[in-house]
């Protein structure tokens, strides 16, 4: 039943305008940075650009992409994201499957579960982890950015709750037909969990693409920086001593339009996967959170 009173119609109008303003406000900063990136250098430096490019030019993007340092760290970020997501998928599937069994049929399940959950509650902190990675000699390698975060306990819990919603009869049938646990997992559980695996992979990809701190502390050589770390150094810290570049090259990457182009390119992969993410994540985060 629709309320047609004058007051409610007034409320609807105000509500709609407010929602519209807030949601536009969420993307406005991105629009602004894109407009700056597409503007002429002088207009941008004079702060004449708001939400639409002034003196439209692609120069800033061309400059950014032709910069070796930038394209190299872009490549490292792609590698890292692929490796990180692959490692996550393998570990998550292998770990969630046994943990999804009942304690009755899998002795020791409870012990394993607490072993993993405890790491969510308590950690040794930044400094011991840093020393460990250095001692293992992982610094300046891609593995330092992948292995310490490969066991994603929270995602494993979501996945195991998803596994538990798969009818037991399927597992029983497959075991009776002579399949072992590996076959059952590969042929029954994983194919049926594709939506959950896709959601969690997308989240992992976003994490690895955005993560910059490990890239900063575990790499002593800026040639190994993933893109997020490079952006952090250039745009946020504005520390060019680490980059070992000549002054003209620094001049080139610090002008406002080029900075804006770098920021925007850093966000592009997220914008690209976002439509897929959005289709899945509402289901994804509710999955596992709600139980009968």
């Amino acid at each position: 039943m629709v309320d047609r009173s004058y007051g409610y119609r007034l409320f609807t109008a105000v509500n709609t305008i407010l929602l519209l303003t807030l949601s536009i406000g969420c993307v406005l900063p991105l629009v602004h940075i894109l407009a700056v990136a597409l503007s002429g250098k002088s207009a941008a430096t004079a702060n004449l650009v708001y939400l639409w490019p002034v003196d439209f030019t692609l120069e800033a993007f061309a400059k950014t992409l032709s910069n070796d340092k930038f394209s190299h760290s872009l490549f490292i970020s792609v590698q890292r994201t692929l490796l990180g997501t692959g490692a996550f998928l393998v570990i998550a599937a292998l770990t969630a499957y046994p943990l999804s069994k009942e304690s009755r049929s899998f002795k020791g399940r409870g012990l394993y579960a607490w072993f993993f959950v405890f790491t969510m509650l308590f950690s040794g902190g930044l400094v011991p982890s840093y020393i460990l990675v250095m001692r293992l000699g992982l610094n300046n390698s891609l593995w330092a950015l992948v292995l310490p975060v490969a066991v994603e306990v929270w995602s494993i819990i979501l996945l195991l709750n998803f596994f538990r919603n798969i009818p037991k009869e399927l597992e029983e049938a497959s075991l009776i037909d002579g399949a072992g646990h590996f076959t059952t997992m590969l042929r029954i559980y994983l194919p049926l969990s594709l939506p959950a695996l896709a959601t969690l992979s997308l989240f992992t990809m976003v994490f690895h693409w955005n993560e910059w701190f490990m890239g900063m502390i575990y790499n002593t050589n800026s040639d190994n920086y993933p893109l997020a770390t490079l952006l952090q150094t250039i745009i946020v810290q504005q520390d060019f001593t680490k980059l070992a570049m000549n002054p003209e090259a620094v001049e080139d990457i610090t002008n406002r339009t080029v900075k804006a182009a770098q920021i925007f390119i850093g966000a592009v992969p997220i914008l690209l996967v976002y439509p897929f993410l959005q289709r899945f994540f509402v289901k994804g985060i509710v999955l596992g959170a709600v139980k009968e």
Partner: protein
Amino acid sequence: MEKSPAEPKIRWNLQRNWPLHFMLIPAVLLTIVFAYLPMAGAVMAFQDFKPWLGFGDSPWVGLKNFQKLFGQEDSVQVMWNTLIIAFSKIVAGLIAPFAFALMLNEVRNSLFKRSVQTLVYLPHFLSWVVLGGILIDMLSTEGGMINKLTGWLFGIEPIFFLGDGDWFRFTVVVSHVWKEFGFGTIVFLASLAGINPALYEAAVTDGANRWKQTLYITIPAMLPITIVLATLALGSILNAGFDQIFNLYNSLVYDKGDIIDTYVYRTALVNGNMGFGTAVGLFKSAIGFLLIVAAYRLAYQFANYRIF
């Protein structure tokens, strides 16, 4: 059939289940190395740790690092900053999505509703490096877009958002809410979807208008999840958001904007004070652990909430 059924069952269990143990090996090894070894390494908190001496030969100093933590003016200030910023974020971060979910609930046009959702969820997925870069640009006092707007609207001087301590805290809380309120509504919308429509029909029959329906049906239905979220947030009262602060702060605002995590990073990895840095981190982990356990207990008692 005189045999006791228990013994063959256990053997059968092991025979059938060895692949399950086998599957867990990679995750167990990685967890031991990258989670449990650092926990053991936290003994550094009780040492004057020197990297070239290692754990064995660094001198033991007992609780000196912890005494320093509570005795030094700057580390005490850092703890206050953390609590103030984290608390403000939690409160604002609960109210905003609650209100937004209520507003969204009144929208009848589903296309408009979905478009709004698409836009407001987006900032959650952008990193603080990207957003930090954008904010530094937009909040600049030399012609940043925000300062131009406030100057034009209210005719005031440019505000030093990232250079003045109090404005910095304000900026941190507001930009956090801006980034997360959309994503935060998902949980509330899920609880709204679970309301039985018959309740509304009954209310309409009894003469309740939209406002009364919201007050007596919608809001009460959202309260349980709100209580759960508020309780669980207690566990993160020491997490004021390292990524965000680190990408926005500078030495001008250390007195009001420096938090435990940024302080640990600077003392240990920048200034090389490893033992003290570890002590601060360990203190945070330990308190955080107690708070999380307490929070989950409370959430379980009040709202029967369990993660698994």
